[in-house]
Structure formats: C-alpha cells, structure tokens
C-alpha cells in the first residue's frame, strides 16, 4: 500500500491535471520572451565585448531555466499553502484523516517537483529550438531544476504556515524573488558583484542551481564541485522541510 504522502501527492495532481496544459503554455512563453528580449537584443551588445565564454543567449538560458523553477516553487509553495490553511482549510481536512504533517509536506513537495519538472521540460524544448543546448547532460536539467524548486518551496511552506495575510505573502515573495533573480548569476557572473554581496549569492539556492544548469546544458565547469552545489540545495530542502514541519504542527495542533 502506498505511503500516505503519495495520497497527498495524488490529491495535488488531481488539481494539477485540470490546469497543466495552460502551465505548459506559460512555461513555453516565458523563455521565448526572455530569449528574444534579453538573449538576442541585449546579447547583441554584450557579445561585442566578448567577456563571456559563450554567446549571451546561451549564457542566460540555463540561468533562466533555474529561475523558472524557483519562481514556480515560490508561487506554489506560498500563497496556495496559506489558502489551504486559512480559507479552503484543506489542511484541516487532511489533519482529520490518518495523515501526519510530514505526509502533507512531502506530498506537496512531490507535486511541486513534478510541476517544476514539467515546466523545465517545456523550457528545455525552447532552449533546443534557440540552439542554446550544448551537452547531452542537458537531459538531467529538469531534475536539477526540480531540486531548485524543492529547495525554494520548502522554506516557503514554513513562511506560508506562519503568516495570516495574502499581503505578507506577496511582499516576501517580491523582496525575495527579485533580488535573487538579479544577484544569482542569471544575467551576469556573480564575480561582477561587489565582494561583500557575493557570499549572499553563494548561499542562496538559485545561484547553486544556475551553476548546475550551466554545467548540464553547456558542459561549463561549476565554481565549486557539483556535489557541493547539490549539497547546498539539499540543505535548503532539508532545513526548509524541518522548519515547515514545525510551523505546520504549530498551526494545526492548537
């Protein structure tokens, strides 16, 4: 008999089945827009300098695929979780069944991993069409992006379980996601950042994900050994899970 967290995953997939095609459509549209606007247009200036080892479009594509994973995970791990606590009370209904808090969190993390992986596959198709894939290792990119997703979603769960308003959720998503996008090596190497800002990028999940995606899609060497980048992401996932677990228990166990 399947683990109870699989039952929670199935529940989330039942909802996803209704909307997955439209999510794929937006997963196709986002890279196309960025590739034309940033990759080709801005790239035509950047590439004149020759500062990057690869054309600018190829440089930002793996950064953007990792960012797409982060963005989806923050979206799916934030507001809907708050909704499931506060308005739809889905977690109350789950708590009344023989599920444990860990099952609820694992089930939704599993769903987010699948959701991110599907988006990453769509993204990868666009990358292939724009000729930004230079390695067969690219096939594992969706798995890497899913790991970025889980690493970002788990702490978001903890946050969503701790707040009470959609506003708080929106503010934190904004102040968290935008700087991460700008300072995690998506559009330029973090070495261009002032030295005191760099360590911040190093510990954030996105930069580690971006490094790994450049390795899988372009066969570029990572700043640190790949397993260190993976370890940072796993640490975010594990730490986030633990935090979420205690916040969920507190919120449900009153």
């Amino acid at each position: 008999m399947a683990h109870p967290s699989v039952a929670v995953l199935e529940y989330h997939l039942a909802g996803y089945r209704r909307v997955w095609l439209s999510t794929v459509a937006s997963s196709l549209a986002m890279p196309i827009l960025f590739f034309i606007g940033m990759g080709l247009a801005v790239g035509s200036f950047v590439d004149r300098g020759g500062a990057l080892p690869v054309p600018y479009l190829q440089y930002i594509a793996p950064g953007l695929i990792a960012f797409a994973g982060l963005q989806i995970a923050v979206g799916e791990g934030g507001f809907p979780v708050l909704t499931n606590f506060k308005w739809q009370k889905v977690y109350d209904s789950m708590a009344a069944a023989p599920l444990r808090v860990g099952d609820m969190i694992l089930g939704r993390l599993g769903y987010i991993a699948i959701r991110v992986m599907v988006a990453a596959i769509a993204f990868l198709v666009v990358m292939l069409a724009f000729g930004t894939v230079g390695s067969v290792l690219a096939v594992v990119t969706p798995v890497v992006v899913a790991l970025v997703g889980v690493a970002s979603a788990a702490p978001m769960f903890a946050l969503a379980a701790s707040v009470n308003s959609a506003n708080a959720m929106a503010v934190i998503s904004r102040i968290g996601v935008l700087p991460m996008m700008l300072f995690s090596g998506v559009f330029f190497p973090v070495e261009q950042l002032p030295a005191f800002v760099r360590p911040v990028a190093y510990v954030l999940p996105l930069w580690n994900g971006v490094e790994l995606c450049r390795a899988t899609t372009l066969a570029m060497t990572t700043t640190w050994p790949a397993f260190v980048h993976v370890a940072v992401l796993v640490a975010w996932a594990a730490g986030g899970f633990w935090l979420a677990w205690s916040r969920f228990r507190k919120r449900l166990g009153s």
Partner: protein
Amino acid sequence: MTGISATPAVHGHGLATGEPVVRARSLVKRFGDITAVDGVDFTIRSGEAFGFLGRNGAGKTSTMRMIGCVSPPSDGRLTVLGMDPVREGASVRARLGVCPQEDNLDLELTARQNLTTYARYFRITRAEARRRADDLLRFVQLDDRAASKVEPLSGGMKRRLTIARALINDPEIVLLDEPTTGLDPQARHLVWERLFQLKQRGITLVLTTHYMEEAEQLCDRLVIMDGGRIVAQDAPRALIDAHCTKEVVELRFAAEDHESCADKLVGIGSHVEVLPDRLLLYTDDGDAIVPTVYERGLRPSGVLVRRSGLEDVFLHLTGRTLVEA
C-alpha cells in the same frame, strides 16, 4: 466493508453496542489564558447518538477537536476507541469520520474527486475508492452531481458531500460539528434523515448543535455545555422531565414592562422566566391556567401553549436561551 447502500444493513464493526468508545475524565482545553473546556466528564457508547448542546463558545467544538485527535488535551484523560488521541492519533483517525463545522471541500475538484482523493488518505485502493464514492454519492443524493465541480453546489449539497466524505473510510464513529447550521429547513431535514439512517445502522454519532430540535430528534443522550462545563447529561426526555414541567405557556405583551407582568403572574404555574420578547410560564397543564392570566388583569397580545423542550431545560440550567434572540 458492507458499504453504504440504500438497504439497511447490519454494520460490520466488531464493537458490541453499548461498549464505551469515548471516555473523558476531567478533560480540559486551554488556549493561552482562555479555558475553552473546563474539566468535563462523559462516556460515549458505541451505537448511540451523543450530542453536545450549547451556545456558541460553550466549548463544544474544542471538545470535538480533542475527540477527533487534532487538538491535544491540556489536562485530564481522554481515550477514543480505547486509544490515546495524542500518541495514537493516526490510528484513531483511521477509524473516525469527521464532518467539520465549516465545509473544507476542494472547490475546484468534482464531487466524486473530493471523495476519491480523500479515500486515498485511508489507504483505500483506487478501485475501492471509486466504488465507495459512487455508493456514498447515491446515499447523500448527489449521484447526479458526481462530475460537477463543488464550487457551484448549494450549501446543503456541500454539507451532504462533506458528510459523504466523512463516511469514506466506513468509520465506527462519526463526528459532526453543527451538521445543519446555516442550512435552510428543507436541506436540514434531508441531512437529519441521512444521519438517522446512519444511526440505525449502528454507527456511533457524536454531534454538536445549538438546535434543540436537532438534539431532540437525533440524540439518544446528550450533555448540555455552558462556559466550558457540562451542566447536565442524560437522554433528552429524561432531562426535560427532570428539569421542566410538562408544558409551557408563552405570553407576549405589546409594549409593556415584562418584569411587572411577571410579578402579576407569581403563584401561577411552577415558575416564570422573563425573556426580552416574551414570558414563559411553566406548568403541567397550560390550558388550565391561561384563564387565570386574564383574571389577574393581564392582556397578552399572544398566547401559546406548548410542550416543554430542551430549550427550556437549557434556559432553566443556564439562565440563557440556547440561540441568541
């Protein structure tokens, strides 16, 4: 699993009727400085319909949540199906059905999906989940809405679907927190009908309510809660017999001082209760004393003789009406 079908069936659980299934001793629930449940004792036996009657904030929902193993007791002892709700919560919950006060269905999924996805939490196979879902949708008369999304369903339909969901694991005890609050009379009667059928099948029903009619119709035994405490417990009829006269005369006066009217009624019947909108005169024979009211010079605008009920018991024991006027 015998399944919930249209034919009455003997329930398949091994529990002998009358065996204690929930036992609370000096049970307490505190939220910070507030004591929601203040040392209650009760025993619920298998096969009975047991009610918690009280106003909003009396501690009914907190008690239910402790029985449902989602809220740990602050003090006292509680066993459900012979187990500890804190240490063995998941095992207890596997054998409970819960219908919360607020429907917490997934509005985006269909009625059937709400049941099938929930069934999986109880380790029920997919095929069995579909079979049970269809049976239960028939039972709550929603089979024609199986494939529609929940969002546009009426309040009564959502409530019935929530009840169906509570039955998906073929539970031994079903907890119903205010099962008909907010429903129109027709929807309410349909729910009562279904709950009565469950009771006939030997499923233990535990419900909270502030509707006297609901408590009288459904409950074999009930406790009256007020301010976190149990003020009385017994069968509805026994409570009425113990605390009330057989009949009540309700007197309404147009724009008169109720207190002074009450003074003039002293000596008629056993006692008088003064409410904001009416006076209640307790007596064993209402029709016999109505003429006396007129003889004392009172001219009520409305007179109603009725049998006494749980509402009167509640008023007598707590000094307040059950439903805020």
